[in-house]
């Protein structure tokens, strides 16, 4: 640690590069979440296909969305389950 960093630590000032890195990581994440409009539609179709192997779901009332806040981003998938399938699922590999 050199004198300037020490001084900053003592004055309780964060390094500007730490701020830069945090901002950068967040920007890259949101850039990648800015997906093409048909991507969400395709994802929904694929998800329905997989989930339907296990559960009977109401394909009409499904909601899929990406929620962003300052700290994090989440993929929200919401579907009512009508019933569970017996003895199904992915065939053994």
């Amino acid at each position, binding site marked *: 640690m050199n004198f300037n960093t020490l001084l900053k630590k003592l004055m309780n000032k964060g390094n*500007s590069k730490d701020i830069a890195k945090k901002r*950068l990581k967040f920007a890259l994440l949101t850039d990648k979440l800015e997906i093409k409009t048909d991507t969400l539609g395709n994802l929904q179709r694929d998800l329905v296909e997989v989930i339907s192997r296990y559960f009977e779901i109401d394909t009409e009332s499904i909601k899929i969305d990406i929620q962003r806040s300052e700290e994090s981003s989440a993929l929200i998938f919401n579907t009512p389950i009508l019933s569970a399938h017996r003895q199904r699922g992915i065939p053994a590999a």
Partner: protein
Amino acid sequence: MDGKVVVVTSGKGGVGKTTISASLGAALALQGKRVAVVDMDIGLRNLDVVMGLENRIVFNIVDIIKGRCKIKQAAIRDRRIDNLYLIPASQSDDKNAIKPENMVWLTNRLRKEFDVTLLDCPAGIEQGFKNSIAAADEAIVVCTPEVSAVRDADRIIGLLYAQSITPKLIVNRIVPEMVKNGDMLSHEDVVEVLAIDLIGLIEMDDRVVVSTNTGTPLILQEESKAGMALQRIALRLDGHPDLPIENPMDKKSFWKKLGSRFSRKN
């Protein structure tokens, strides 16, 4: 054997693509390769002045593509460095004057004549970028340790992967003093975020400006740290991929130097 085509690209402007293309071209030629450096920035050429060849332009890349001249007529030979050639951009044409298939055609011919063809890509992700990557076998992505430059690099890397090209990274304009003080992203930070392999690190160096002022190759300047770094990058690009990458932060500090002096005496 056919030569290879390497694109130097970045997304963001002003990060050092042209400087690096010119110097790598010179370094590779001095290492005994036949090299063509191509200015892909149609309408806004600059590589010619950086290489100091601006007053020798007769034909340009668009003339070649439109069949108005032969490749040999447009390629300017550097008289100071053997086997180094520049193919200048056109200053008057529109950037849509060339299409990716034209570049594939041109580079296939250049491969027969040159061991290495370097494409100095314009900023942005439009036509000039598309033309440049359509023809490239390898890519060097340049960025500076700044949020905007790294973000653009990330976008470019994604587009290169989509073309099945795995790029290598140069971090340029590093100021060790600022990194030390915590006021500049370190190259480790940048590599961590971008998750690609480095091919070199270049410090901020006043010699770069001097070399551009006079149009003399940076690598011919004694004592240029950037020039030395670029010579080593040229080696890594051509047959010595494992040459260790020197860390600009490793420089011995004044105190350490003093310390080693004392210890030598003892």
